[in-house]
């Protein structure tokens, strides 16, 4: 099982962590909510929990709880610019369908 991220995503995560001046990494996760069943979580992490899995990606720790990992295995975190809009995108091979906006999904 593995989670990865693109170098664009890594650059941005490093920048945000530096700016925030604390935190051990970022958490990727899912929770059951949203218009299409599940939605993504993307947060800074100050203390990882003991059950968390940690994936080292370059200089950044990607932290994920075991339950979310089931839904996110093989996901690549990317950073995308679409015109003036920019932000992180989960490229998740497990997704069967998404709501139109991509904020929530089904597996």
């Amino acid at each position, binding site marked *: 099982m593995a989670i990865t991220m693109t170098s664009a995503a890594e650059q941005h995560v490093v920048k945000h962590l530096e700016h925030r001046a604390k935190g051990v990494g970022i958490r990727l996760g899912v929770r059951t909510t949203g218009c299409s069943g599940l939605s993504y979580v993307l947060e800074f992490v100050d203390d990882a929990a003991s059950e968390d899995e940690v994936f080292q990606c370059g200089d950044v720790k990607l932290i994920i709880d075991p339950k979310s990992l089931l839904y996110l295995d093989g996901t690549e975190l990317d950073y995308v610019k*679409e015109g003036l809009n920019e932000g992180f995108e989960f490229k998740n091979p497990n997704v069967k369908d998404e709501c139109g906006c991509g*904020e929530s999904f089904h597996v």
Partner: protein
Amino acid sequence: MALLQISEPGQSPQPHQRRHAVGIDLGTTNSLVATVRSGMAEVLADEQGRDLLPSVVHYVTEGVSCVGYEAAEHNVADPLNTLASVKRLMGRGVADIKTFGSQLPYEFAADDGGMPKIKTTAGLVSPIQVSAEILRKLAGRAEIAFDSELDGAVITVPAYFDEAQRQATKDAATLAGIKVLRLLNEPTAAAIAYGLDESERETKGQERTIAIYDLGGGTFDISILRLSKGVFEVLATGGDSALGGDDFDLAIADWLRQQMGMSEDLNPIEQRILLETAKSAKEELTDSTQVELEVLDWQGTLTRELMHSLIDGLIAKTVRACKKSLRDAGVAQTQIDDVILVGGSTRTPRVGDKVAELFDLEPLCSLDPDQVVAMGAALQAEVLVGNKSGDDMLLLDVIPLSLGIETMGGLIEKIIHRNTTIPVAKAQEFTTFKDGQTAMAIHILQGERELASDCRSLARFELRGIPPMVAGAAKIRVSYQVDADGLLSVTARELTSNVESRIEVKPSYGLGEEEITSMLQDSFSHARDDMQARALREQQVEADRMIEDLLAAIYKDGDALLDSEERQCLKVAIQELRDLRETTSEHRVLARQIESVAKASEEFAARRMDVSIKTALAGQTLDEIEKG
């Protein structure tokens, strides 16, 4: 496709719940919009990657033709329909425009409301409408960036903006369809962008005094703030509304002209070439020590030292304004904890050096000085819109000048004192002064002085329909409420009858920024005079009341209870009091005279009391009285 941002632990938004808020720096020359992405404030650029939006709107017969860079291009060809710098006109009255509007090329017309409008080919346009166009353009930029509607915005205004100017800014936002989360003072926004509010929290609320040095293209502002327990208090503001980086360019261009041996009356094209050369030379000298110039058929060198000699006089003017504001604030240079550089013209290293020298402190300048205000506003917007937990940053503003009400004798009774944090509501009870009084004029004032005539009149309204009662029996509750944007509403209610009257204060437009600072200043310098004036007025009111009461009593009971000598004696005493009330400026003298009149009329009062008791008791048995 919604793209995600990194949230604080435990604060990931629900899908479709992320709220989009921006901070807008609505500037005189340029405006910006910023938002917070993954905890960082970022300025949103347009499709061409440009951060700034020139605060310029161009009108054609059908209406607005364009806003921003495109509009600015019409400046030369169509100056009367290309509206720039309208921020200077926001919330101003027609009379103000007459005094300083002559610097602007536009033609003005007054409307019914006393608000000036600008004559354009599309008809009359108010400064509020022009500002709304700029705000609409910036909001549109944000909505494209979010791919979503905007939930709200924090808009910055200069610290010296009065209520009229703030209301005008808010009106512009409403007109543009933007929900204003709050208006924020520009220097406060700069301090937030540098996280000074957070460092204050970390040092357990230790007070910090902050100077914000804001040198833009055409304006200079200095603000002294005190940050204490999460509240920014404006101690003093100052500056020069006609001094900026453009004056540096002019000084250099003038030197160029002399070097080139040209006469003073240049044609517009030559003028522009010289200015552009001067500007780029100034910018190059930020990094290099000298620059080779080639203008028309002239070649030469401008060294950094030479440029300094050209602009030092201008910088010295800003330094003098800083010193004055420090004096106004009652703060010594050495008591300043942080200095922040704001405005593109602070990029000139000489400016930073002189500021550092003045405060003996390395100024904060790591953030882009053009963007810092918008960034601070964006951080504030993020909290207000509810994306970040509020405990993190509880930022309050304070009202800059006390709000009060005029009482008898032209005195001001302060209802909300200056530096009270807003939003706030305060009420006070008043009563009638005369028997049978059925109406009361409420005069709302702003200022620190003791006499109403020395304060700024914000609004007047009347409470009518008070049931006739003896003086002092009516209970009139006057409530002042200031919302989070510093806008005031006043309600007056007579409590026994529940008659109510209220007003939203959209103050009579027009108060110069200098007047505001000088109002504060005056209250300090006139503190003693004011105290005496107040004491005198109080005695005058007391004298008036005594004269009126006595005359009424003599009219009623004088024939029955006084012999002609006594009566004459009282009349003389009253006349003396009346004369003294008009002539003396010594409240103690007047107080003594009031006392002696009171003494002289004691006997008369006692007789009246006896009579009224006798009348009340006449014809009743002792039993009835005891029961009663």
